[in-house]
């Protein structure tokens, strides 16, 4: 048991890699064996993170379950892992969504072995970002996550996958160039990449050696701030850096979209919370207005963009832009007035929104995938009136859509309310404008339901070889945990929000 306590994080982090290695040695034609091995082994980190969740002590401030291993001593970087309430929720989200995504990809029949291995590598990459307490390790995992996703889109995607995967890869890598440079600068300046130390050193740094005399320390900090922000803004994605997202989501395989929307986007927002706010409090405060502007633009234009789609999956993809805009709005509000109750509420909302969006977006993408697998079309105009054919699917779709819409009683409302509540006294105008986005959230969700489920039945799907089949048990099992969490968080959010809240109060 002691072993578990001291090594829990590295077990969570590296068990997917171990699973991938096991799969590597399985014969490649045993599809069932590979699938089930992947699924069962992906439950290992989930169970471990449940253990983590229950052993985590929310009353303590600071990081828990810390582990530190030598990694690159010469430049002061170490494999330093740790969780607090902020990363704990994200770890739970990641380990929850990965088994579901793997279960969702049981219909993949090409190159299954490679697919499952990539998926498990992806999980480690994402978990690494959430668990890292070392700036360099953070960056390493940040980039590791890109590669499996690139191949998932590129190899198992739909028609336009080459364009989409390239755009995804180059855009995100381009964005993180500045992050790398700024990371190096911090590392060189202080001789350590350890976040716990950088939090103390960097914000209060008044002078740096080895900088050209014509650059002041504040200029440097501003440049580094924007380098961080752009890297994370591309990932979130914030308007106007969002155009990679609809393409990547639309072309990715179903499970890829689930993880992309469910977890990968959270990496950006997590970066804001973990790095930008603690490292650059002054700059964040100064530029909070700009951030809020971009967030509001993401909310409004995301909603409009979503409303303007005829492709179901692209509609859902744009909704991610819209929802993640609220996360950044909350962050901007917290940046502008850190330390106040309003800021805490806004951040509570932002973090919960990250979790919630992970659930509902993953669910939505999965549901789009379910119908796409049966009809091989995503064009909304090709559907129509499918509700009588697939009543269970329809019910699940409406439920998940309503969560995405922010219906009170479901999870989306709680977080959006908290963000709006927190942001209103701080960024009144932007919050008011973002309501336009909230309005159109309703519009595009209803448009989706209207085109797919409601209206006169498109007879094409009613008979013969095209007859639409109902959602099957495996697919319901994928949706069930998501729906249960959506409802539970909507009705009783305190269990998760309490953990988040304590972390937020301690951190910001």
């Amino acid at each position, binding site marked *: 048991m002691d072993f578990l306590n001291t090594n829990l994080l590295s077990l969570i982090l590296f068990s997917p890699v171990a699973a991938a290695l096991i799969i590597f040695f399985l014969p490649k034609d045993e599809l069932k064996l590979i699938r089930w091995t992947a699924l069962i082994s992906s439950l290992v980190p989930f169970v471990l993170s449940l253990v983590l969740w229950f052993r985590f002590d929310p009353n303590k401030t600071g990081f828990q379950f810390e582990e530190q291993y030598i990694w690159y001593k010469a430049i002061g970087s170490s494999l330093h892992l740790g969780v607090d309430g902020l990363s704990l929720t994200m770890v739970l989200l990641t380990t929850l969504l990965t088994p579901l995504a793997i279960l969702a990809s049981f219909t993949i029949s090409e190159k299954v072995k490679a697919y499952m291995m990539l998926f498990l590598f992806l999980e480690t990459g994402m978990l690494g970002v959430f668990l890292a307490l070392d700036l360099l390790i953070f960056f390493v995992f940040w980039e590791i996550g890109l590669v499996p996703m690139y191949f998932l889109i590129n190899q198992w995607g739909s028609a336009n996958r080459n364009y989409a995967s390239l*755009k995804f890869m*180059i855009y995100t890598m381009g964005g993180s160039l500045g992050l790398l440079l700024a990371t190096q600068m911090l590392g060189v300046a202080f001789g350590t990449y350890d976040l716990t130390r950088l939090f103390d050193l960097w914000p209060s740094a008044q002078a740096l050696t080895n900088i050209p005399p014509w650059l002041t320390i504040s200029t440097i900090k501003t440049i580094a701030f924007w380098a961080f922000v752009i890297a994370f803004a591309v990932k979130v994605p914030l308007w*106007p850096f*969002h*155009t990679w997202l*609809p393409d990547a989501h639309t072309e990715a395989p179903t499970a890829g979209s689930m993880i992309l929307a469910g977890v990968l986007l959270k990496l950006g927002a997590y970066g804001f919370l973990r790095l930008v706010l603690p490292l650059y409090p002054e700059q964040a405060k100064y530029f909070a207005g700009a951030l809020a502007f971009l967030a509001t633009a993401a909310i409004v*234009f995301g909603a*409009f*963009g*979503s*409303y*303007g*789609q005829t492709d179901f999956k692209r509609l859902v993809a744009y909704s991610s832009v819209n929802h993640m805009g609220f996360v950044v709005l909350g962050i901007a509000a917290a940046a502008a007035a850190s330390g106040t*109750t309003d800021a*805490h*509420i806004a951040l*509570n909302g932002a973090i919960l929104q990250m979790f919630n969006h992970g659930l509902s977006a993953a669910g939505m993408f999965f549901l789009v995938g379910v119908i796409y697998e049966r009809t091989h079309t995503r064009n909304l105009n090709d559907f129509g*009136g499918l*509700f*009588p054919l697939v*009543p269970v699917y329809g*019910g699940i779709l*409406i439920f998940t859509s*309503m969560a995405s819409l922010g*219906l*009170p*009683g479901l999870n989306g*409302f*709680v977080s959006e*309310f*908290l963000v*709006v*509540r927190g942001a*209103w*006294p701080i960024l009144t105008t932007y*919050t008011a404008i973002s*309501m*336009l986005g*909230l*309005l*159109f959230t*309703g*519009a595009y969700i*209803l*448009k989706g339901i*209207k085109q797919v*489920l*409601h*209206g*006169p*039945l498109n007879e094409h799907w009613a008979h013969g070889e095209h007859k639409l089949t109902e959602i099957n048990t495996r697919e319901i099992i994928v949706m069930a945990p998501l729906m249960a969490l959506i409802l539970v968080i909507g009705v*009783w*959010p*305190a269990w998760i*929000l*309490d953990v988040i*809240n*304590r972390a*937020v*109060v301690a951190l910001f």
Partner: protein
Amino acid sequence: MATETLIWLIPLPPVLAFFLIVLFANKNKALSHTLGVGAAGLSWLASMVVFVRALSVEHLGEHPFHASVNWLPTGETWFKIGVLIDPLGAATLFFVAWTIFMIFLYSVGYHNFGQPKGDHDRPGLPPHGATVTDAHGHKHTIPSVEPMYSRFFAFLGLFAFGMYTLVVSDNLLTLFVGWEIMGLCSYLLIGFWYGKPSARNAAIKAFMTTRVGDVFMLLGIVFLYSVTGTLSFREIFTNEELMHALGTTATPVLGLSAAGLIGLLLFIGTVGKSAQWPLHVWLPDAMEGPTPVSAMIHAATMVSAGVYAVIRMFPLLSLDPATMSIVAFIGAFTALFAATIAVAQNDIKRVLAYSTISQLGYMIAALGIGAYVAAAFHLITHAFFKALLFLGSGSVIHGMEHGVLHTGNHHVDPQDMFNMGGLRKKMPITFWTFLIGGFALAGFPVVTAGFWSKDEILADAFAHGHLAVFITLAVAAFLTAFYTMRQITLTFLGEPRTEEAKHAQETPWTMTVPLIVLSVFAVTYGWVGIPEHFPLLGGLVPNWFHEFVGSTLAEHPEAVPFSPVPLLTSLGVALGGLLLGWLVYRNVKSPAEDKLQLPVLKNKWYFDEAYDFLFVKPAYWIAETLVYKWMDKGVLDGILHFIAHITGVIGAAIRNYIDLRVINETIGDGTANTVKWMGFNLRPVQTGRIQQYMLASFVVLIVVGAVLYYFLVMA
């Protein structure tokens, strides 16, 4: 059981029924309606217990039933949610419990439980009737059971949960939760027959229009929460310092105070929910839902929630006169405006829909002039008689559908009043109850509840000097009486105008019992609020309603002094309107003879068209063209592709002009070529003859040895 615990439990049975039906019972119709009606009955029972206990508490206004729990952590503190039953809540709970229970019961009959399955029925479309062969071998077409019967009760259950939640909430947030859940249910129920494009569009229209209001309401909640740090009604309203501060803090919007602005934002939510001008457009279209039941939800229960919310927030609104003026204006304008449209409608339900808008305008106007007790009174009486009217109209339509199935002529619209006539003989219970409801709506003096509540509003308006409001409402009341009588005349009086009307049938007991129960309330409920100083009748029974509901707030409103002007006015407009309606329409046979079918009224003052042009089409254009095609695909992706293109061009240039020319050809190939040339020319040296090699190596040995010897030894 403690009353507080009981209050917590009130909303639960319907939502449990919802989940049970959706998860387990959706194949079994009898089990579904048993669950649904049973749950409604349980909630009704609990509500009645709570109501009775509330009556027995003295000074309930100061010591209401109240309990709360921590719900959301917000920084150092917690946001609490809880239940609250104060006099207003108790009164609301009373009518909500009754009407909801009646709806559940009525739905069993309306959806033809016990009838055979339809011949061509499919989920998503209204049932078309089933063909049966009787003992004599004759084929009859009779109504068929609704294919999605279970689902209907599930939705109703969820709806009831929303309404109960809204009523028992002690704070704005859970009120909003119930509010939105009802919004969802209204969407689902309007679009219940989703196979019909008109129903589908109406559902979306309803959801989106109310959402416009909801978004503002959310802002209002957020604003209130950030200013006061709480959303609990009592914590805000009993804190005089806070209220004073709210009333005096200025905001940059329209010169309103903070209280005024919050009130206005919340009021916009009500405008959406209660279908006030300019967000009234969704309610008439909502009649696309399963005829009477969802219409009834949208007319009697849910829309009342909007007014209820404003009454709840009345202390806040009343702090700012400007907001009050806006409220009064919108209410009065809507009351008149909707009444004018109702005059020209032929669909039996649409008339009622517009009359609902008009009556809700009445209540809003009453609030705007400060008469919140009168508004609450009218809210409750209206809920009873409007529920009665809608259920009655549903009963009429159901009876007409019998006729349609009998003749087999499906082109006859069973909802068009000009296809009816003379139904009083065919459907006596429906007729008498409808008549009671209609007279209550028209404000028929003394006996009906509508008279007392309407009269109180008019009296308040007159007594407080709001003459413009008074006159507007009086005109609206006249129009109301007029179109109500038009409706009764066209539907029930005279002779049947079509074959279908001749074969109309009275509806089963599950439908008529709710009508009778509601008609009792439509008459008697007025008697609990008779003003003290009313001639003859005043003081016979105490003005219980005014005392009870008036004690909700700390400041007890004064009963208005009696004045004959409003009394005579309301007598005049009610009786005059009824009489005129009967005179004009008793001989009208077809729409062509109806002089009031003005295009502008028929087309609802062209609001749908205007909104379509002003908002819907631009929204489409912005979404599809501006944002997606131009901004994202054009500008942003254009920039990206331009950067990619430039990078490509630079890369190609570097390759073509530097890599290929300079590095490859000059440096790389050049070096290689030189070496090759030298090797080629040196090649003959390699003769393969070892003696030559040896010779050469000895020459080198000698020369190098000599040189080394010279430099190392000699030097």
